[in-house]
């Protein structure tokens, strides 16, 4: 059941020609990209372009779905009814983003079932940020402020990426992420301006989440596996380091306004560059988290597997009911 290829025979044949990837096709495709053309689902495209997009969009979808868990961790314990309602609405948005993105990826011929199977087997990755725990309420604010903030910086350029269905999905996703970022900052603002223990909780959360948020932009340009080809294909428009710098420059003043301290002793404004210089990211931690899931990676996957396994009988029942119902309708006719 996990080998569904959604393409029709005609599409497969057409794309098999593309898959031979002779130089002329590659060149023609690159010309379209260079001319700023938007590639649509049924257009000819190099298999590598297709595979890259499936990997990227499905990872993005997985991150949205897994990302529900660290936030869901506080739904039942949210400190007020208003915060509970906002958090529920936000998580609902994230689930919607996941579905939206799986649909965008399905236009490339891979089924959602296949992609989810890759997540559950551990083959596909999700954003490293969601392997970090959310032990305090302040983390819900910090996740909105920093994590959704970083996501926006990453994703706004994707609204103009070369693959149409992905670009269009990102327009809506970015609008909602922008709201999420503001609500997160508002939580942190309320705490930073509240009682001393609230401000301390906000600072402690910032201390934990700052560096993992910077890691969300991926490895440095020198170590990035996919950046160069992706930029050529206009899937990616700016390098990891450029986006990371953009995020830092936007976020540091936001922390200063609240009287919170960014946990980086090397952070300093560089007048010449008109940007912040910042300390070395612990890349050993990044690679370790990516490979073994860090603090919560395994429990996040376990939770997703449990949800999926617990849903097996529900899906089977829905399938059996639909089949019976269809048969009955057929007989009645």
């Amino acid at each position: 059941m996990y080998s569904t290829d959604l393409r029709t025979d005609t599409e497969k044949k057409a794309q098999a020609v593309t898959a031979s990837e002779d130089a002329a096709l590659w060149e023609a495709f690159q010309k379209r990209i260079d001319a700023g053309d938007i590639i649509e689902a049924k257009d000819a495209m190099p298999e590598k372009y297709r595979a890259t997009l499936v990997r990227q969009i499905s990872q993005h979808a997985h991150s949205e779905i897994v990302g529900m868990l660290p936030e869901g961790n506080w739904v039942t314990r949210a400190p007020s009814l208003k915060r509970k309602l906002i958090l529920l609405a936000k998580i609902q948005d994230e689930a919607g983003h996941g579905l939206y993105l799986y649909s965008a990826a399905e236009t490339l011929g891979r089924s959602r079932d296949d992609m989810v199977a890759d997540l559950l087997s551990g083959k596909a990755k999700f954003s490293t940020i969601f392997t970090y725990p959310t032990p305090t309420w302040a983390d819900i604010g910090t996740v909105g402020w920093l994590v959704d903030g970083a996501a926006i910086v990453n994703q706004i350029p994707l609204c103009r990426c070369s693959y149409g269905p992905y670009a269009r999905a990102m327009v809506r996703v970015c609008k909602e992420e922008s709201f999420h970022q503001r609500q997160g900052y508002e939580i942190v603002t309320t705490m930073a301006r509240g009682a001393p223990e609230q401000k301390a909780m906000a600072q402690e959360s910032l201390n934990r989440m700052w560096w993992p948020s910077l890691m969300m932009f991926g490895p440095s340009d020198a170590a990035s596996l996919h950046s160069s080809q992706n930029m050529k294909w206009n899937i990616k428009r700016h390098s990891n380091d450029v986006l990371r710098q953009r995020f830092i420059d936007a976020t540091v003043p936001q922390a200063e306004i609240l009287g919170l301290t960014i946990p980086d002793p090397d952070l300093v404004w560089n007048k010449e560059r008109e940007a912040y210089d910042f300390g070395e990211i612990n890349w050993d931690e990044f690679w370790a988290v990516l490979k073994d899931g860090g603090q919560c990676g395994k429990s996040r996957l376990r939770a997703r597997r449990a949800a999926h396994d617990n849903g097996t009988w529900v899906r089977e029942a829905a399938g059996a009911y639909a089949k019976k119902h269809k048969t009955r309708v057929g007989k009645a006719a």
Partner: protein
Amino acid sequence: MAIHIPNKPETAYIVRLADNALILGQRLSEMCGHAPEMELDIALTNFALDLIGQANLLYEHALNLETLASNVDEFALTRSLDDYHNCLLVAQPNVDFAHIIVRQYFFSTFQKTQYEALLGSNDKTLAAIAEKSLKEIAYQIRLAHGWMLRLGDGTEESRARMVDALDCLWRYTGELFEKDSTLSALIKSGASADFTLEYKNWQSEMMKTFSQAGDLQAPDILQMLSGGHDGQHDENLGHILKGMQYMQLKYPGLQW
């Protein structure tokens, strides 16, 4: 300030409605990220959102009618267990998706009857809250009814799980239609119509759905269980409150 218990029957009744919505919303929000399918995750989260939104409006209204606490959160999230007046049904656990659906179907169909009785209330705010909520309830019934049929008339396993869910939850439905002194006072004052007269119709509606759902039967139970409206709860509510009240009790008086 200390929490005060409602003196007026109308306020007590509104708190009862709010507690029902809050506790079921809280139960459903436990499923966030854990539902059997992503679309169902969104649906259950949305139910929680609707219900807690209803609770919020109702608590605000109750606090306008009587001075019960310094704000809604203090009242909603810090009371003692026996000061919650929700029915027992809404606190029943998320055993599996069959239990979630049966609980939702019983509650939403009951809530429809209960809120329709408020549409002509002489309390215009309460009538407006009911009118708004009924739109949400209609969707909840539609989704729950669809799954009642799919699970009851699906596979052998899904049917067995539905039988178990009915066996566990049917016993809490009598309480929903009990006419106690609080409700009687509201009926007398014109704040609510007497929806308890609809109990038999509600039961017939349930039987009709059971029969469409693979010919499920109402279980033979020896007694209906109640007490929630009077603050007499089973083991479930205390565990719900432990999480729900955590922040308000640990940091009293702070704004978040």
